[in-house]
């Protein structure tokens, strides 16, 4: 087979892209296996060092924070619960509200949709004080509910689900009706399975969104028990040395690598579904 110049250049561009993505991760990983002194004196590392198990063990189990009661493992669990809760609820609520907007033909459906859409202009960061006030009035500070609840509505996901539902032919609904399906059954037996791909994609996006939240957990948690991974990155593993705070660089790299695992896992697991949905073009 003849290799065309175009193919070669395309592959070079792709390879460069891959390098751009992979190299920083590799450096982080390689550096996380050395000890801090080596990194501080010699700079970042490309080769694997000898302190892998010691560093990772320390990161996972050392108690951090000023109260010395939170470990990185605990923060992973917190972040995971928060991201899972946000992603699940966002997908569920968006799918259901899109269902209502598309299939219940009432006059206000379009204005309501645009109202939902406009909320894109007021992200959490903009409305953070009123949101904090409400959450604290409800007594939800320092709780998982408080972490999750203000973030569960999603205009973007509602929009995507709405667009998707609009492509489903009316006959399907009519046929299902004649087959005795009520509104719930139609949603569960038809729209949910048909939008599997969509749900998987939305879940991935929303999980990563929830996982990477920083400002909201920072403001609303005062107990270290509810710290999340992203917050921890800044706060833990700072050693004080004669009154000066020194970073423990190697452990931080280990922490970064570990913090990447949950979102990567979600992507890897759901991607099978995602790709399956893309290959089977059925509608």
């Amino acid at each position, binding site marked *: 087979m003849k290799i065309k110049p175009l193919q070669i250049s395309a592959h070079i561009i792709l390879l460069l892209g891959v390098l751009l993505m992979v190299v920083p991760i590799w450096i982080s990983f390689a550096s996380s296996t050395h000890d801090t002194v080596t990194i501080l004196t010699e700079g970042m590392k490309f080769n694997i060092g000898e302190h892998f198990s010691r560093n990772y063990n320390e990161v996972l189990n050392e108690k951090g924070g000023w109260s010395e009661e939170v470990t990185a493992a605990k923060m992973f669990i917190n972040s995971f619960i928060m991201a899972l809760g946000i992603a699940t609820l966002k997908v569920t609520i968006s799918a259901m509200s899109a269902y209502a907007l598309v299939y219940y033909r009432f006059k206000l459906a379009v204005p309501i949709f645009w109202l939902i859409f406009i909320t894109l202009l007021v992200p959490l960061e903009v409305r953070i004080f009123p949101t904090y006030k409400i959450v604290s009035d409800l007594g939800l500070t320092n709780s998982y509910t408080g972490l999750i609840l203000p973030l569960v509505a999603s205009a973007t996901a509602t929009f995507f689900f709405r667009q998707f539902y609009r492509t489903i*032919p009316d*006959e*399907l609904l*009519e*046929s*299902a*009706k*004649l*087959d*005795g*399906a*009520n509104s719930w*059954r139609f949603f569960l*037996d*038809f729209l949910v*399975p*048909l939008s599997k791909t969509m749900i998987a994609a939305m879940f991935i996006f929303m999980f990563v969104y929830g996982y990477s939240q920083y400002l909201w957990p920072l403001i609303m948690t005062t107990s270290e028990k509810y710290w999340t991974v992203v917050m921890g990155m800044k706060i833990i593993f700072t050693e004080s040395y004669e009154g000066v705070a020194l970073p423990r660089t190697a452990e931080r790299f280990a922490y970064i690598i570990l913090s990447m695992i949950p979102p990567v896992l979600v992507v890897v697991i759901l991607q099978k579904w995602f790709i399956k949905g893309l290959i*089977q*073009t*059925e*509608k």
Partner: protein
Amino acid sequence: MSFLDLKNVTKIYPNGTKAVHETSLSVEEGEFMVFVGPSGCGKSTLLRMVAGLEDITEGEITLDGNLINEVDPSERDIAMVFQNYALYPHMNVYNNLAYGLKNRGIDKKDIEQKVNEAAKLLQISEYLERKPSMLSGGQRQRVAMGRAIVRNPKIFLFDEPLSNLDAKLRIQMRLEIKKLQQKVGVTSIFVTHDQTEAMTLADKLAVINNGVIEQLATPIEIYNNPKSLFVAGFIGSPQMNFIEGELKNNTLSAEGFEIKNVKSDFNGDITLGIRPEHLSQSDNGLINLNVDLVEQLGSDNLVYGQLKDKKDFCYRCPGNLTIKKGDKLSLNIDNENYFIFDKSSGKRVN
């Protein structure tokens, strides 16, 4: 009271369009009723009102003695085959058939038995595990019918189910639908714009135009005895020839010929209708035709040409006659087989 009764059923859409005018008709149990008409005549709307997919603006529909105006479609015990089949894309054929039964809370064993019976009847047993996307047009059609049959509904509704198939398959499925309906014996309503389908399938035929039933009778009665110009033009292939003329004192005069002793007391402008197959050649015929084109179908020839006044005209003759372009034919009407319509109202007057 018959099995399905429509009384003054009317449909007015919110934008004010009146799609179906006060329509009354009744369908007997086990009867195969066909609604035929051009696109947009309201035939599908009428069907969808029976199904419960459209609200009824006025009038009453009773099925098996019960008023069903306000009954939810899911509770009407009606099955419908859609134009694009509306198969459930994410379910395999088995589940497509079983879905309606599951929703009715029938237990698994019975469902399995019913699905297998229906599949056998429709010869789709070997495809039960497949998804609709892996089936051909004809197979999908069968699955759609299976989904209707399996529930053993009170009435079958077909909304132009054959229009997505190619010509050969359409004829085959047409036969199968008819056979199946005779075997299962379920009351059916079939909507189509294809007059051949309508003629071949129907026990009774309703020709609909502009939301009004123009004529309701057996297919052969409609063919032999069309009540209006629209029905005459719509039923029959090739289309009936129309010639304009005048009727006065039982004498019909048109461009180039006269017919005497017409059995009609109508006086005034009329349209004369003659079917292409009701003509034959004779030496001193009424109608002189200049042949433009001959279509040889084998058993028949369709001869197209023009009359004196350049009006298009068609004559159907046996296939063994050789007629060429440019021939001049002299034609007579067989056995007074002609129809006279009032030109202004379109009503039949002989």
